């Protein structure tokens, strides 16, 4: 925050979303991996690789997450490395805890990678497969997971059990074990733990068991279940991403008022998170301890004569007050009062009317979109009304215009609700992961946010290109077209940082081709090689218009510092300065000179950010 300026602080930044996110992350996220011992060696190793990927990206992206690993359907239950962590946990038969839920550290990941090296040999010997048919009790496995999550010692905000298997039917539908497993599904719902199955085969059939188990564990109707694509599931898991359960991870609940006494409840979601860089810290050289830097605003009262500190206190960022001047009188507005202005209306969404879809301009932007989905928990029956509204808007190409205040103390915004539909089941690209059925919330810019620019200085009849020019670029487009693959686009600076961190900490080499660098122009040249000669004949060489002011090549000319109207030497005399103050001529001094006056005659060193006006004010007040 190098721009911090106490004289003019625009404190009303719209950060309520960040606050919402923070609250959301209050409590940790936990992922408990469960690997089915039934997986054959190759698939088993693939599963471990997936987990390694998830561990590493988890460490890089969200270091505070808890992760754990259990093997299911094993013959033996060898204890984990830290045995004491199982003190109050009963390990079920045919299950083995490899890693209790922990925040990952270098040591844990190294331990896991060591195990991976020898897993092919060691696993059958030390863990084995449950006898006789490799089917341990599913219900017991879930019980163990629940116990581990509950006793992990941290408050959890979002806990997931990720079961990696290729067995479609852990128990036959007629067996009592099957019923017991379903019983556990309801437990998961009650405890708000999420269950996911990651199939290691592509054409995995959810019908015999998992469809019922999952819908029960999420308390949704059987016919609302959408069969996920197994391959895509695995790919995104490696990035430590999972298709998230809609119920648990929304940004907030609210009611949409459609008229007097008619409201439905809904929740909203984000399509992407804030950009997360690894947390930057300071480290003590001698013992590697983490040093946290905090910025504090200190207010001190000085004794007028001796300049000694008589009283000192710290003030929070949210402290202080705003000032309005009426002539000489100053009116204070406290932060608390401004907060109350924010809180004038209860949060919620209100329908204002409908427009045709085409009324929404193509390029309108204020802030990232959100997604809205009904919530039957608060107002029962919301889902049906929501569906009716959504379906008719979709069919009639209508959008709803609403006023939306997402949280208390947030800013009310105008939004357009665009009906969107989930991708078809056979659609297997990344786009299909985007959303389901519901409304996309498009935030509309306020009138003041739209800049009106008069382009008359750019307009000229010579701007239009010839048709040959257009034809040339059409050819270039054909040659250089690519498919948009979001998973290949990552922040290059972040990738370099992450691979360096891994190399430093784990001696783990990231494959180079994974790093997305800025593209190589030589490659692009090569693809349009044949077209390039035409470019030079079609378009003249660009002549940069003459610059109005020469750029400052050295400090002596160009943007030379302002020439002072008042001579430096005169300022040394206080009588002269006093005269300036009396005649209100301080404005003629440069800011540098004003600082000099403050320092020389009043012994005050003003903040670097002080404006000239503030400096003059200070001098005038001090001279009185």
């Amino acid at each position, binding site marked *: 925050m190098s721009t911090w300026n106490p004289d003019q602080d*625009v404190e009303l930044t719209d950060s309520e979303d960040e606050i919402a996110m923070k609250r959301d992350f209050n409590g940790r996220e936990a992922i408990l991996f469960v690997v089915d011992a039934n997986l054959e060696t190759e698939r088993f190793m693939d599963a471990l690789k997936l987990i390694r990927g998830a561990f590493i990206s988890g460490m890089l992206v969200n270091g505070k997450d808890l992760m754990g690993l259990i093997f299911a359907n094993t013959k033996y239950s060898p204890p984990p490395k830290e045995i004491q962590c199982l003190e109050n946990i009963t390990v079920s038969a045919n299950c083995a805890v490899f890693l209790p839920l922990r*925040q990952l*550290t270098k040591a844990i990941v190294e331990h896991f990678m060591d195990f991976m090296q020898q897993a092919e040999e060691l696993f059958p010997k030390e863990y084995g497969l449950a006898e006789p048919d490799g089917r341990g009790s599913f219900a017991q496995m879930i019980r163990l997971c629940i116990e581990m999550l509950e006793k992990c010692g941290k408050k959890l905000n979002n806990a997931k059990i990720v079961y990696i298997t290729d067995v479609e039917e852990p128990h036959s539908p007629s067996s009592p074990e099957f019923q017991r497993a379903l019983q556990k599904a309801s437990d998961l719902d009650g405890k708000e733990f999420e269950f996911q199955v990651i199939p290691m085969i592509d054409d995995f059939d959810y019908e015999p068991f998992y469809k019922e188990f999952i819908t029960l564990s999420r308390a949704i*109707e059987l*016919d609302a279940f959408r069969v996920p694509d197994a391959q895509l599931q695995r790919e995104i898991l490696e990035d430590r991403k999972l298709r998230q*359960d*809609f119920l648990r*991870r929304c940004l907030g609940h609210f009611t949409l008022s459609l008229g007097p006494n*008619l409201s439905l409840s809904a929740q909203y*979601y984000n399509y*992407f998170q804030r950009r*997360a860089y*690894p947390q930057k810290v300071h480290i*003590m050289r001698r013992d590697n301890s983490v040093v946290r*830097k*905090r910025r504090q605003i200190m*207010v001190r009262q000085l004794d007028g004569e001796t300049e000694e*500190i008589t009283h000192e206190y710290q003030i929070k960022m949210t402290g202080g*007050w*705003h000032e309005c001047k*009426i002539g000489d009188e100053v*009116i204070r507005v406290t932060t608390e009062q401004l907060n109350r202005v*924010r809180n004038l209306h209860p949060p919620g969404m209100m329908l*204002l*009317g409908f427009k045709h879809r085409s*009324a*929404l301009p193509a390029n*309108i932007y204020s802030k*990232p979109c959100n997604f809205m989905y009904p919530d039957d928990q*608060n107002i029962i029956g*919301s889902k049906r009304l*929501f*569906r*009716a509204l959504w379906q008719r808007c979709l069919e009639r190409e209508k959008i709803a215009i609403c006023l939306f205040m997402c949280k208390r103390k947030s800013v009310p915004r105008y939004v357009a609700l665009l009906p969107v539909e989930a991708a078809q089941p056979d659609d297997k690209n990344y786009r299909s*992961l985007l*959303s*389901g059925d*519901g409304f996309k919330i498009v935030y509309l*810019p306020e*009138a*003041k946010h*739209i*800049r009106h620019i008069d*382009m008359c*200085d*750019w307009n000229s009849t010579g*701007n239009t290109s010839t048709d040959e020019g*257009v034809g040339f670029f059409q050819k270039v487009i054909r040659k250089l*077209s690519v*498919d*948009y693959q*979001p998973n290949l686009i990552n922040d290059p600076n972040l990738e*370099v940082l992450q691979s360096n961190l891994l190399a*430093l*900490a784990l001696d783990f080499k990231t494959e180079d081709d994974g790093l997305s660098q800025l*593209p190589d122009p030589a490659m692009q040249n090569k693809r349009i090689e044949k077209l390039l000669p035409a*470019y030079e004949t079609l*378009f003249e060489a*660009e002549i*940069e218009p003459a610059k109005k002011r020469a750029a400052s090549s050295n400090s002596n000319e160009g943007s030379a510092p302002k020439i002072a109207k008042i001579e430096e030497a005169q300022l040394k005399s206080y009588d002269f300065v006093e005269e300036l103050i009396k005649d209100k001529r301080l404005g003629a001094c440069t800011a540098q000179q004003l600082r000099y006056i403050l320092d020389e005659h009043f012994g005050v060193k003003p903040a670097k950010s002080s404006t000239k006006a503030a400096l003059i004010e200070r001098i005038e007040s001090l001279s009185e």
Partner: protein
Amino acid sequence: MASNKECLIIILDVRNSASEEFKLKSVKCVAEIIKDKIVGGKKDYVSFVLVGCENSDNDLYTADNKVCQNVVQYSNTQLCTWQLLLSFFKFVNEPTCDAGEWLDGLAVAMAMQQVALPLKCARQRILLLYDFNYMSQGYDDYNHICDNLLNAGIELIVGSHNIAYIDNAETSLPQAIFQSSRKPNIHELENQNRALQLVSNCNAVLCSFKETLASVFKVSNRRPWVWNAKLHIGSVIAISLQGIIAMKAESHIKLKKVWGEAEELVEREERFFIKGTEVTPLPQDLIDGYMLGGTPVPYDETLVELPPSHAPGLHFVGFVKHSSIPDVYFCGDSLYMLVHQKGNTTSAQKLDALVRALIAQKCVILCWKIFSVKFNTPRIVVLIPQESTEDRPATLYMQELSYHAQHQFWDFPSLRTEKTECNKDQLKAVDNLIDSMDLECTLKDTQQPRQRRQNDLLPFDGLPSIYEQNVMDVLERKVICRAADDEQFQEMLQDKNFVDIFWRVPEPIEEKSKQAAAALKKLFPLEHSHAWLEKLKAKEQEQNSAPAIKQERPDPISIDSVGLMTPVQDYKQLLQNVRSELNTTKRDAQFQSLAAQMRVVVITLLERSKLDLNQLNEVIKLYRDSCLEFNSFTEYNQFATQLKTKATERNLQQFWNTIVVEKQLGPLVLGEPTLEDELRLKKFYTNPEFEVDTEMQDDS
């Protein structure tokens, strides 16, 4: 925001014949303009002219007593302040009469603009708020004044109360007309005609009150801030472009924030903490690093080779189909428009060709944006083509995309399930709601005059900033009432007028929408869930009852250690804990660790550039007493020596004399002092060798 300052002269009609409602509205309108300029921190100049006063007081009248009678001008043209707003409220209450002509007001305003020329405003505007009623007005100077306005390049906005809009039959563009319930008399007709002709005679804007504010605030900028960049495709093709901000979500409220009273010194400091305990490391002790999970990893240029910085500009990645880019991945807080470099015809032609080719191929450009050498982080952006129009050349919109690592994937169950299936009546009721709340169509069918310029009850380019409006209104009230204390403030907010005007369906469709909603309610049973309410209640209780146990504490030690803010209280409290320990061995161990912390605190406090002597006195004394209590003589005596060394090193004469010597905080002596002890103490209390001439430093 880049905006060029303007000089705005506002003419108000205060004649007795002007309707009261009109007068109230015009004062409100002016107040809104002034408030907006104050709160937005704009450097615009404003002044006023009243038409229809008993007195005549303006520059033209002073020069020649025959002209511009009954017109009063405000004493000066100035920046907007709260004081100006209050003065304006006083100024409009000048005694009024029946006479007064709007052309005179215009003439005075133009003269004032002339006087204001040295203020070097980029834009000169006059706002005329006038009731064009049945009173006869002179129009001898009409053409003359219109020409002058046009020649001087002064923009004129005319606002009145009985103006409505219809679509022009030929151009189908909106057009302002006068609307009245009764037949106008001959003067009224003439006045209105003259006002209407201003549009064609001097490009004036004629608007209703609602639109007046929008017209005043809608200022187009000829010289916006630009970001100069080159778009490179391969290394041969390069187009010089300029990026202009087209939309940006930002707050326009500028209020001076104050942290301390005038005589207090406010400073921003950096402090360092290890597990909650403050430390004062030297810069060379610290190394930068990152957290990798729970492990800190040192990271700086001595350990790894940092990649070289990227060249600023736009680096092409590929052409992609427009339809393949999901707009939900757009991020950032602004939308840029890229246009060719001003005056560079070749780049204009290239951009035009590129844009047309992109549109023909339904493609957009994916590229990396490097803002500058300083802000060097690459951002992936899409460039969306916009074909040239009459008033703008071909452009590209630039929109930032989020990265894959940020993306969230949700698993939403389908909405179309058996349980949510609706019957015909229900769908019909929904359709009815959609139709009766239509913001566009109901108006399109009829050719009735309407209140707003656009044929839309909620045009997308005219959405108000509700929060900013509230802040402005609240501040205005506060300034007028001088409501200083919290109670008055609360009362003021209770006055719900502030918010409710925004939270309502536009008036023309309000009644119909209510009926449609009522019909809908009958068909869709909705019920508040008790379980949910219980859950909310429980959550609230949980939050209210146990704020102390804020789940995991980030640094549990922070509460168990002596901090720098309140070391005395911290130490006393912790000492109490130590005393309560029954096991003596444990107790001594605890005391030793606490004492060690305290020593660090004292040394840290001593290292501050400005010493708080009172605090030091208290802290050292407290520590000394505790050492006596816990029989920790050796430790204290060692520490006392350390204090002396520190004082010598840092030349802390005042500290030494007024605290250590005067308050006798030297080594501890067990029982009655022996001669040896006394000699030892005397030696301790002798002044160490301070540097002689730097006494000033210690005092400052």
